[in-house]
Each structure stands twice: as C-alpha cells, then as structure tokens.
C-alpha cells in the first residue's frame, strides 16, 4: 500500500475515502446539473439562451380577471430580483435567469396575493422560445391566495 496519512512530513496523501469525497464535491454538483438539465452549478455560461416573457393576471372573488403589471412589484424586490424580473414583462433573453424565474413563480404569486387584497388567485404565464424562435412549452401556474375569511 501507499504511505499512510500519518506520515510526519506531510507528503502522504490523506485517506482514499477523503480524497474521493473531495473529488465528488467537485464533480457531483456539475454532473447533477448536466443530467437534470439545470444550469445552476453547471458552469454552462451563456450556452442555452432562451427568449421568455412573463405575464401575470389576478382572478378576483367576483370572477373578474385582470392583468397585473410586474412593475408594481419592483419596490418589493431586491436589486438582483429587479435586474432579472423588471424586463420580464416586455420579454428578455437569458439562460440561468429563465430557470430561476420558473422556480420562483410561486413566490411571485404569493407576493401579488399579499399586495392585492381582492385577488382570489394569481395566474402566472411564462412564454418561452428558443433563439431560433421555436416555441417551448409555456409555464403556467395558478397560485391560490389563502386568506382567512
């Protein structure tokens, strides 16, 4: 066997299990991202750009459906959220930001519920397309505003 980790000059490699664990910490997040198609932790850097446009609607208790302007949410957003979300209504091109936006639609819905007391539910529609213009499946979420009557 090779030198053990107890060598006093520090030249020995640590235990194999420890080295394999550290290697896994390097490799596994990237592999998981690649396999799952996620760009977070993938180091993919601008490679899967998508066009997207976000539209919000509120459904009131009386049955009316109204467009909710995303700009009304801007004061309630962090600077980074503004950077990503403010252009989303007009449409933007992004990679990781599009994925982050999809994952955060429920949070946006909850915020709209908090701000619009008449809203019974919030509808969030994210239209997506490839750079060639070929449409991708639209993401459509309905967030119910749970209010105490």
């Amino acid at each position, binding site marked *: *066997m*090779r*030198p053990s980790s107890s060598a006093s*000059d*520090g*030249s*020995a*490699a*640590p235990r*194999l299990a420890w*080295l*394999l664990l*550290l*290697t896994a910490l*390097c*490799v596994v997040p*990237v592999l998981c*991202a*690649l396999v799952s198609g996620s*760009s*977070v*932790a*993938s*180091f*993919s*850097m*601008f*490679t*899967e*750009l998508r066009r997207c446009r976000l539209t919000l609607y509120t459904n009131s208790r009386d049955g009316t459906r109204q467009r909710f302007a995303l700009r009304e*949410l801007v*004061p*309630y*957003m*962090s*600077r*980074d*959220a503004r*950077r*990503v*979300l403010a252009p989303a209504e007009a449409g933007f*091109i992004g990679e*990781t*930001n599009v994925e*982050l936006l999809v*994952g*955060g639609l429920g*949070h*946006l819905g*909850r*915020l709209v519920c*908090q*701000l619009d007391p008449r809203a019974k539910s919030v509808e969030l529609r994210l239209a997506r397309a*490839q*750079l*060639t213009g070929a449409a991708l499946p639209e993401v459509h979420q309905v967030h119910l505003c749970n209010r105490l009557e």
Partner: protein
Amino acid sequence: MRSAAWRAAGALEVWYRDRFAGVVSPWPYALFRIGIAVSILVRTNDWLRPIFTLDHYAWVRGLEYDPQIEQVVSPALQSPLIPGLSIGPALAAFLVRARTSLAVVLLLGIKPRLTASILALIGAALVAADRYRYFHHLYLLWLSCAWLAITPSSERLSLERWVGRWPRAVSAPRWPLQILRQQCIIVYLASGVAKLNSDWLSGRTLSALEGLGLVRGALWHRGISLIGYSGAGTGIAVAECALGPLLAWRRTRFWALGAGALFHLAISATMSVSIFSLLMILYLATFLPFQECGVSSA
C-alpha cells in the same frame, strides 16, 4: 475474474493516491488565498468605481445585498434558492459587513482555514437567500473560498505568522493543490461540454449575446470578421473542452497555461463575465511549476 477486479481496484487506488501524495512549495496556496480574498473584496462592493469600470457596477451600489442600500419595501419578495432559507434585514446587514471584514482577515492570512470556512458559508447563504442573486462566477467564487478551508495557505504572506515569528514550513502537502487543479479542469470540461449544442456551435448564441451587448469590443469585431460567429462558437467550445486534458497532462501543461491565460484575457476583453476570468486565471496559476515533489509527477 474476481481477483482481476480486485487487482484493478487496487491499482486504481494506488494511481489515485499517487496523484495526491507528495509535497509542494507553500506559495501556490498563499497566492490562491490572496487572489480569492481580493476577488471577494472587488466583487462584493463598488469601492473601485472611481478607478475602474467593472461589470457588476451596473447593479451593485455600496456593499452588495446591504438592505440599507437596497431599500426594499415590505412585504419584500422572498424567493430563496434553497427552500426555507430566509435571512431578515438585520441579519443580512450583519452578514454583508461580516463578509467584508472576513475577506480582509483572509487577505491578511489570519486563521485562513477557519476564516475561509465561515466566509464561504456567509457568502453562499447570502446568495442562496435570493435566487436572483445567482451567477456562475459567484458560485465559483464561494466554492473556491470553501476549498481554502482545506488548503494550508498561512505558510507564506501571513500576518499571524509574521507577528508571531512562527517558523515557516519549507513545503506543504500537495493534495490540496491537486484538488484545486481538479476543480479547474472540471469547470473547463463542464463549460465546454455545455457548449456542444447547435445554438452555440452555429453561432446563434454568440450573435444573440452580441445583440444584448454582452459581447463587444474591437477585438470581438475583428475576430468575427475573420472567423464568423460559427467559427468563434466552435473555437470557444473546442478550447474549453481541450484545456482540461491539456492542463492535466504534464507534457502539454506549459502550452495549455499560455493558451488558457490568453483565452481568459480575450474573454475578459470581449464579454461581460465579471470576475470569472480573474478566478480562472487564479486556478490556472495553480498549474505553474512550483517546487513539486510527488510520488508521480502528474
């Protein structure tokens, strides 16, 4: 059959251990620590705004994520990257200041392993508390900071060693250096493999990035007039896929180092990638021929 498998596993274990055994000059660790600390200090505020124009100044004012500067109206949008992670304004204000203070402590080389551990946790938590803060270069930054927690970086350029007049070690274990190199190779491979798609290779992605103003400059326009969008896309993908193996192999390392440095200088001059090029040059520097003595020379 079974004994052959055991022999192969044993040989693999020996090979793997040999890559990591040995000693190296402590300098690469100290330089990496200082580079990461400087990167954190540069990236998480806009203090150099009067001197330089950096990409993140487009949206960063003062200390990044400082609630007192962001002035978010209540009820604030809560959208963490890690479900359930919530950092209130008071805690966030404390953490952004702690992040800056700890980066200075890391720069000075005071308890660098502990400092780097805490700093990586704080930095990652602040990013993960709001999904829209995520950037690949920030992920790499905090990941690199976490690697400093296993790196013996206080043997050189360390205030605590200088003040305490502690004896300086002549060498340091080589295995943390190999982990850093491994991380560098994985970034290149992941980035290169992700580019092997029709949008990137046809040049459509680069053309769109140019339209967004994310790729620009005289060098870019000259390059595109010479090789076209498709040529540039293919060239970048090939370069990233090739750099990892070329750095790993000792015979090609020297040329890969030069090519890698030029590659990042070109990216830095043409693309909005914030500190990504700086971080990758730090990683490339770990491949420099420091006095290295291993069981093998890989």
